[in-house]
């Protein structure tokens, strides 16, 4: 898959584990998100009931997705909006480019959008001489560093404040080099001043969408910086990028899901800004774009409907799974090698780019289950990772050593008598090898273990051997 290094997860992970800045950056952030979520959940006794309600809304919508998309499209058009259907990312890019060209755009304001990342909108715009201006602070930071987001709601979470300060000094060369940027607030203020000027230069504003509302034909975004509003209200044309599972039946439904979204994502009761857009500016509106377009992307999602990975379409992109994932917290988002990291990425990425391009992702989990425990939409993430492993195994993609090891193990595990005999000998030998020390520093074929840990030696005889002697055979 072009642009993806998900197949190289293991090498990516090893590289990222050696990154001290990443470790420092993530060690603070996971506490903030995890503690924040725990606090607001504890404050809301009906949180679990709210999760059930949110799940039920999405289940119902997905079971009637065609209907709600049609209703939404009709209402969006009635409100004066334009709806474009994109079956893949190439179609989405072509639609966006055509709209930008027609508008004579030289600059485009961009609110945060993972669909834009999935489609490679920035690269496409730059290749066509159009300057994308990221208005989300985190997105802006990674843009000036020529990086990709490492988290779906906190794109620059992999960076320390010192790294951001350095990038600002290198990029904002017109400012006083002696200025004080030690406080995070100073970085924010500087970014705001730079960005505010740019808001007025763009002909087109692109945002994502947290919801498409069938009842009203609206799109909704949530932000904490208010940047989305400016990116979509000031330019002449507003383009919304949304994937098709973002539709919900009513505003009431959206509001139910919003209540679990902010709590799960950032530990807020509600995001600071919730912005509804319904069509372009009307005659008596004070502001708003002249044109309102929504590009609805499929890119493999419709094919997930009704299949083994159907439930993944309930995902509302809160990021709770990655905030609570010990693997994500160890390696960071870039190791996952494509747009969506963490547990949700480990399930979604193989569905969108193919298991043959992303096989390590669903394998890189201990199945600890913390992601499923916190998922507001109750998506069985570990169970679906296991389903990917089954697909991988059935297609013969499982690495040879694992297959052969399993075959050998199975030959013993299904023959208890042989198993008892062989394991009895092996454990005795291991215990003798360890001697009185009780553990081994090195062990053939177990280098992955003993590189980092001692190997506790068996006590000597197996339980079954001793039990048979003590109590006889039952």
């Amino acid at each position, binding site marked *: 898959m072009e642009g993806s290094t998900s197949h190289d997860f*293991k090498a990516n*992970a090893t590289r990222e*584990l050696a990154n001290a800045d990443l470790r420092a950056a993530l060690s603070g952030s996971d506490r903030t998100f995890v503690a924040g979520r725990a606090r607001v959940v504890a404050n809301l006794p009906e949180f679990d009931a709210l999760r059930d309600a949110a799940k039920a809304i999405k289940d119902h919508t997905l079971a009637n997705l065609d209907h709600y998309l049609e209703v939404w499209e009709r209402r969006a058009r009635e409100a004066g909006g334009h709806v474009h259907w994109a079956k893949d990312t190439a179609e989405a890019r072509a639609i966006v480019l055509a709209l930008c060209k027609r508008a004579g755009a030289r600059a485009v304001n961009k609110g945060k959008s993972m669909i834009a990342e999935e489609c490679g909108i920035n690269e496409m715009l730059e290749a066509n001489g159009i300057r994308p201006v990221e208005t989300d602070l985190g997105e802006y930071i990674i843009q000036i560093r020529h990086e990709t987001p490492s988290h779906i709601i906190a794109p620059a979470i992999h960076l320390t404040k010192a790294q951001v300060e350095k990038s600002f000094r290198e990029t904002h060369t017109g400012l006083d080099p002696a200025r004080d940027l030690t406080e995070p607030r100073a970085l924010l203020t500087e970014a705001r001043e730079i960005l505010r000027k740019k808001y007025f230069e763009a002909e087109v504003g692109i945002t994502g969408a947290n919801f498409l509302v069938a009842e009203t034909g609206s799109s909704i975004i949530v932000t904490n910086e208010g940047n989305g509003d400016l990116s979509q209200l000031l330019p002449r044309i507003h383009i919304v990028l949304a994937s098709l599972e973002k539709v919900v039946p009513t505003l009431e439904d959206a509001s139910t899901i919003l209540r679990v979204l902010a709590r799960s994502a950032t530990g807020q009761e509600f995001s600071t800004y919730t912005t509804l857009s319904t069509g372009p500016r009307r005659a008596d509106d004070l502001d708003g774009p002249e044109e309102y377009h929504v590009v609805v992307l499929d890119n493999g999602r419709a094919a997930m409907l009704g299949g083994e990975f159907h439930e993944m379409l309930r995902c509302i992109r809160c990021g709770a799974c990655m905030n609570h994932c*010990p*693997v994500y917290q*160890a*390696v960071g988002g870039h190791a996952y090698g494509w747009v969506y990291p963490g547990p949700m990425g480990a399930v979604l990425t193989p569905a969108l780019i193919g298991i043959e391009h992303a096989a390590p992702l669903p*394998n*890189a*989990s*201990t*199945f*600890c*289950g*913390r992601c499923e*425990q916190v998922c507001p939409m109750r998506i069985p993430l570990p169970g679906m990772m*296991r389903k990917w*492993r*089954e*697909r991988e*195994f*059935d297609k013969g993609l*499982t690495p040879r050593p*694992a297959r052969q090891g*399993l075959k050998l*193990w*199975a030959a*013993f*595990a*299904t023959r*208890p008598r042989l*198993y*008892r005999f062989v*394991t009895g000998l*092996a*454990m005795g030998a291991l215990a003798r090898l360890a001697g*009185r*020390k*009780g*553990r081994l520093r090195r062990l053939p074929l*177990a*280098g*992955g*273990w003993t590189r*980092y*840990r*001692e*190997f*506790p*030696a*068996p*006590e000597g005889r*197996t*339980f*079954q051997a*001793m*039990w048979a002697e003590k*109590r006889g*055979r*039952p």
Partner: protein
Amino acid sequence: MSGPRVGLFVTCLVDLFRPTVGFAAVKLLEEAGCTAEVPQAQTCCGQPAWNTGDRKTTQAVAKGVIAAFEGYDYVVAPSGSCAGMLRVHYPELFVADESWKARAEALAAKSWELVGFLVDVLKLERVAADYAGIVTYHDSCSGLRELGVKAQPRALLAGIGGLHLRELADAEVCCGFGGTFCVKYPDISDRMVSNKTKSIVDTGADTLLAGDMGCLMNMAGKLQREGAAVRVRHVAEVLAGMADRPAIGEARDGGEGA
């Protein structure tokens, strides 16, 4: 009057590496009034195959376990991970095979993790054991999240004379074992277990307890490589008053230490 007839699912790691835990489990079950039996036709619950995506092999292993244990009132395992496999995953294994599905579901319904079984089913409130020391407790993932084992070990540990429990920061975060994960992704696993051993050492406890041998061997191996003076034991050893033997990976009498 005799208590329930319990089949002990020993688990492969206890059978091979730590028989003491198996005897501790038998002692606890018998003292609580059960008849404990250990079918010899058991090997492993099948997780290595199940977590590699090999359903057919898993089914073959699971059929052996189901056949060996269906005659008992209960099946009890000194492991949340293996008990979770029997209780939660066996019924998922046989989607198309109604007869095996029914047998798997029947087995699942009577399968328990040891400490959960003692407290939730046998209503045990106290064990007759002493342990002089400060212990900390790691909540293994499957027991915690698949079976809800959290309060039960703490309830029994609270009644042990001389034992002082000091809670571990991030007690519910995975230790990085994950079965074959720890050898498939050794670098990541190492980071996870290093985070865990740091929390363990920070408690100042002299003993680490948990209910799963995989996690225990992982954490013990890391603590010993780091030279930390923390003894590591399965919780059943302490509950059964059998903590007089060398701890996991610890030198035997007369052997040189780390």
